[in-house]
């Protein structure tokens, strides 16, 4: 194809040209993830700065990610595996829903117990409204019927509001908070770990590990107040609560992200140290590859698997919002709703939020399992 412009020496393209053309194609392909990554980062930056994100951009992001995901799954012959796992997920969620439902109903005491008992007629009316006086198995089948249509019921506490409604309102906030923290955790934790390992036993290594150890030992309910004291009361730079704009995001994201940053840095460092001593790294070095290439291409890719294992549950926990952080910073996320629904015994809300959380965890684990294949092609999923 590219021969038209070039004076042809012979009819068939020379080996050099073929290689070059293939190389070009590969290089172009290699740019695609970078392009998608920058587009995603651009979206995240926009939303962090508090701008309204145009729907077109969101759709473009979604389609691109979904497209890459599909191509990845199909090209590695994982389609069947994905469907199998999704089927298992549905079954798992069904069992979780049933167990939680039954346990909540068997528990002594009801959602409408008050310190001052309600008049029996009022109680009877309320119970009739929420179908609580029917036999247990009828309630259970009604609940399942609703569930199969995606209906999670109506909250007992917020009268007249559907559980789906409440979740859809609170989940994006928690998602946002979690997403920024997750990005922080990866963008900071992995380089920190790699850097500490590459400067093993140096002053920087000790300092980084001191930070990481303190970070894992400091619970978020201490970090939050400490940050608030410093940045809100002493320096007066940032607001101490709510979720109204970029300046409100910084402290909660830092608080939520600190522990993951520390854990990921520790994990990365330990694994990089392990991989760095292996034979194939010695080979790569003796080939004369630049230290940076060895470190970030050969070592890193091979030492990220334990980090990946840790990331599945971490992502689910973090995206579904941290109960403590939403409490400290008064953020209207889903974690706060869950804690409140438990104290109020708001059964439909408890059930709904539990299902959403479990779904996120199952999904995160599936994605992590699929990514294993990328990081270590020897792994076979079945």
């Amino acid at each position, binding site marked *: 194809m590219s021969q038209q412009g070039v004076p042809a020496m012979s009819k068939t393209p020379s080996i050099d040209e073929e290689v070059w053309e293939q190389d070009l194609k590969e290089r172009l392909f290699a740019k695609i993830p970078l392009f998608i990554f920058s587009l995603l980062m651009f979206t995240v930056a926009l939303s962090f700065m508090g701008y309204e994100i145009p729907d077109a951009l969101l759709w473009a992001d979604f389609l691109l990610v979904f497209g890459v995901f599909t191509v990845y799954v199909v090209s590695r012959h994982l389609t069947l595996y994905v469907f199998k796992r999704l089927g298992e997920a549905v079954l798992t*969620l069904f069992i979780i829903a049933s167990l939680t439902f039954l346990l909540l109903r068997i528990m002594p005491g009801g959602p409408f117990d008050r310190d001052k008992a309600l008049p029996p007629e009022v109680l009877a009316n309320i119970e009739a409204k929420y179908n609580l006086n029917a036999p247990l198995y009828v309630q259970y089948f009604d609940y399942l019927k609703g569930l199969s249509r995606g209906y999670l019921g109506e909250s007992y506490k917020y009268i007249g509001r559907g559980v789906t409604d409440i979740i859809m309102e609170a989940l994006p906030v928690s998602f946002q908070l979690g997403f920024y923290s997750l990005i922080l955790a990866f963008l900071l934790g992995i380089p920190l770990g790699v850097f500490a390992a590459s400067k093993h036993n140096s002053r920087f290594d000790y300092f980084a590990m001191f930070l990481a150890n303190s970070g894992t030992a400091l*619970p978020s309910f201490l970090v939050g107040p400490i940050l608030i004291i410093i940045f809100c009361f002493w320096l007066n730079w940032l607001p101490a609560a709510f979720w109204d704009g970029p300046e409100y995001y910084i402290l909660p994201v830092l608080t939520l992200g600190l522990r993951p940053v520390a854990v990921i840095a520790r994990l990365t460092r330990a694994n990089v140290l*392990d991989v760095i001593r292996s034979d194939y790294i010695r080979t790569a070095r003796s080939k004369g590859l630049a230290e940076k290439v060895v470190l970030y291409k050969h070592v890193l890719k091979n030492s990220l698997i334990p980090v990946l294992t840790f990331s599945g549950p971490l992502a689910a926990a973090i995206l579904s919002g941290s109960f403590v952080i939403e409490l400290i910073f008064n953020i209207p996320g889903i974690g706060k709703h869950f804690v409140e629904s438990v104290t109020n015994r708001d059964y439909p809300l408890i059930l709904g939020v*539990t299902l959403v959380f*479990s779904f996120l965890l199952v999904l995160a684990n599936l994605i992590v399992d699929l990514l294993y294949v990328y990081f270590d092609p020897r792994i076979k999923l079945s």
Partner: protein
Amino acid sequence: MRSSSKSLWIDAFNRLKKNKASMVSLGIIIVLCFIALFARQISPYPFDEQHMDAILQPPSARFWLGTDSLGRDLLSRVIYGARMSMAVGILTAFISLILGTIYGVISGWFGGRVDALLMRALDIITSIPTLVLMILVKVIFDSVQLFENPELRALTSILLALSLVGWVSLARVVRGQVLQVKEMTFVEAARALGASQFWTVIKHVLPNILGPIIVLLSFQIPSNILFESFLSFIGLGLQPPFSSWGVLASEGAKSIRSYPHVIISPGVALFIAMLAFQFLGDGLRDALDPKMKGSV
């Protein structure tokens, strides 16, 4: 045989002794255990005694760490908090150890269909996020009260909630180890010599998987302490007047602006304990099972 297995443990201990951070941490943990055991003798005041003339006092000669919003001595409360937090951390680790070991051994030893079924059940349990499961179990046990004594009552539901969640990871590790060990020749030899299954497991399998279990336990204790304080902080764990570091932090967080000393002392105590457990765990892992380095 006996002497060689003994020297294995001595080897591990010698390796641990070389790790200074771990030995210091071990010292700190022993001190904390003493404080926890003798809280009544050490603390200057009972944990719930109110001094109405001294509310929210900063640290002074009379109250070394100051007082809280009800005039209770914070030093005493932090000491009693150590008792509660350490009790929760260690007891839950042991309950989950027993549950996890039994489950893991049954699953790994019998293998086949039993194993598949038991592991499926674990998969379902692990599909519920830890904190959510913990809260659900806690709420359920809260409504079933087993004891009259209020302190025991407060303690039991949180103990059960934490250990019913904690045993899962232990069961996984134990199962994996049993699967490996049961193929080894010494197990085969024991069976060939006519040892019963039960005896083989107790005498030959368990001692050989002790290393990873100890390492995992040493990481579970601090995470249990942390989970307890999380639950107490969001108001679903222990309740005042009982004292744990999480309860104290939660009380302190309400008045950080004017009275930061209320959150600082339990916070520092918790931080030191977490750090000590972490370094000890790292040391134990390096000494007992260096293979685990990259995964815990």
